[in-house]
């Protein structure tokens, strides 16, 4: 899949996409007298409802700008962004959206509970008692307080919600941020680097929360440069680099086809290490197979090409060894990421 191919509008699922960006371009000017530098170049994305969609890319690829355009915090130079079919410039489109910014910094003079109460009042969702909620003020306030307490419990902050945010750790602020993003049970949750700067336990908790949202039928769109996290939870990913889409699709379709290598476990007769026939073969195929590990009884070999695998197996059998297991290793998201970003780099340099 080349960048040119992926820039074309992709197939539409029935009904509006949770988030759709169509040929969005954006440039920023650092100073009035400098030329505007393009950050996004005709980027098109479609986030299907009910999925976890990862937006991946190296630093400076345009992930945060993409998210800000999706939330109408930044206006595109061209192209458009829609949330459930409505243009994002219409504030009503954002009623169904929750958002957690990168490295969140909230009003530090507020406590976690006060901040969530403020966010709930602005959420505009009747469930939070905000916006145009019907009923009496008292019932709206009670609904809001109930929602806030429910989310504080969900993010494990119920006992610490009375602490001013200026005295909270990064992890605690991130949890409060996650809670405010989930206020009003939004259908689309947009998270900018939600796992950034968290310890492994914090990352695990955020991952679990994201998975819970999908179970509840919500859509999660998040940016990350931590590929391991994305690989663990994403249904689909979009990889962008220098403002352009370089790969998009489900993880299954992106990673299924490519077998990166095979590992072959060979038990050696009489504990003689790598059999002589294999040593000979290795000399004939320099750099095409390697010994991963070896013991007296068994050695583990790795080959990268299918024809080398056949030859290796034949040589092993001929030497009187027994091939115990052959394991194909498929490409990881990291491999795919590095390959696609690297290819784009080479194409640009050429």
């Amino acid at each position, binding site marked *: 899949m080349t960048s040119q191919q992926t820039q074309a509008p992709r197939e539409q699922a029935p009904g509006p996409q949770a988030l759709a960006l169509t040929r969005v371009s954006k440039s*920023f000017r650092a100073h009035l007298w400098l030329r505007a530098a393009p950050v996004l170049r005709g980027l098109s994305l479609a986030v299907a409802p009910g999925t976890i969609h990862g937006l991946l890319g190296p630093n400076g690829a345009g992930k945060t*700008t993409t998210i*800000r355009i999706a*939330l*109408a*915090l*930044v*206006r595109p130079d061209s192209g458009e962004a829609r949330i459930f079919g409505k243009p994002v410039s219409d*504030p*009503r*489109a*954002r*009623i169904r*959206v929750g*958002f957690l*910014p990168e490295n*969140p*910094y*909230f*009003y530090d*003079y*507020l406590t976690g509970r*006060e901040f969530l109460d*403020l*966010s709930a*009042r*602005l*959420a*505009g969702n009747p469930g939070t008692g*905000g*916006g145009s909620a019907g009923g009496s003020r008292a019932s709206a306030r009670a609904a809001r307080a109930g929602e806030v307490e429910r989310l504080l419990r969900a993010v494990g902050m119920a006992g610490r919600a009375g602490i001013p945010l200026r005295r909270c750790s990064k992890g605690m602020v991130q949890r409060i*941020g996650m809670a*405010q993003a989930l206020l009003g049970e939004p259908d689309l949750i947009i998270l900018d680097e939600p796992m950034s700067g968290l310890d492994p336990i914090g990352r695990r908790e955020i991952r679990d929360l994201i998975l819970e949202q999908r179970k509840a039928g919500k859509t999660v769109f998040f940016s990350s440069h931590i590929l391991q996290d994305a690989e663990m939870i994403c249904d689909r990913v979009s990889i962008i680099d220098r403002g352009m889409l370089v790969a998009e699709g489900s993880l299954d379709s992106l990673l299924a086809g490519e077998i990166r290598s095979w590992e072959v476990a060979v038990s050696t007769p009489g504990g003689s290490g790598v059999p002589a026939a294999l040593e000979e073969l290795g000399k004939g195929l320099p750099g095409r197979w390697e010994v991963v590990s070896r013991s007296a009884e068994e050695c583990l070999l790795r080959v990268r090409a299918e024809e080398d695998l056949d030859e290796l197996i034949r040589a092993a059998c001929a030497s009187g060894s027994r091939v115990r297991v052959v394991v194909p290793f498929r490409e990881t998201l990291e491999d795919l990421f590095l390959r696609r970003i690297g290819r784009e780099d080479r194409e640009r340099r050429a």
Partner: protein
Amino acid sequence: MTAIALNTFREAIRDRVLYLLLFFAVVLILASRVVSMLTVGSEEKIIKDMGLAAIGLFGVLMAVLIGVSLVFKEIEKRTAQVLLARPIPRWHFLAGKFGGLAMVLALNCLLLTAALYAVLLARGDPDPGLLPAIGLLYVEQLVVTAVALLFSSFSSPILSCVFTLSVYAVGHLSWSFLILKERLPAGAGRLLCDVLYYALPNLDRFDIKGRVVHHLPVPAPELALAVVYGAGWTVVLLTLACGVFARRDFS
């Protein structure tokens, strides 16, 4: 919008700058009692003069110092992003900020007025005639707040502070454009004086301190007109600020 206004109010009343300004204003009002002892026969006038000056000066300082940083701080610290990603139009954000600061200024006026009347009461002269002057000082502070918000929607706090204080100073001298106009020959110079006179708020309209202290009459229609004039300027300035703010990128 109410939520943003209440949050702005809460932010300001948890800010030490507010208490510092309030402290100095109260000290100045109380000091007027001491200064008045140095004069002969016009002690109340000195107390009233100094008290009204303190209410006006510290209110404007508060409007400028808090007003210029209100929006800028939110953009710099990126707290605005979380709010603006909510389903609210951008002008709600600015209007909420203005509303919150208006509440702070009202509280400031109330406290300083109470301090001034406490001093006057101790002298046995709680003159209610000062209240219209205090009311107009408050209207003036609202106009200055709107100027500060307009500048802070596109420039840094320091520049906004300089611009706002310049508008405040020129706004109190705008009568001089009319005098200058009379002395200039017909042409571009006169036109420029007219433009400057009408393009900037005439803040002298809100200054009736001298008249109330000397018990000179201030007709009710003049008071009402000053309030309408202040409200008009506030709406125009806030509309401009909202226009600028709506076009901004929060990157």
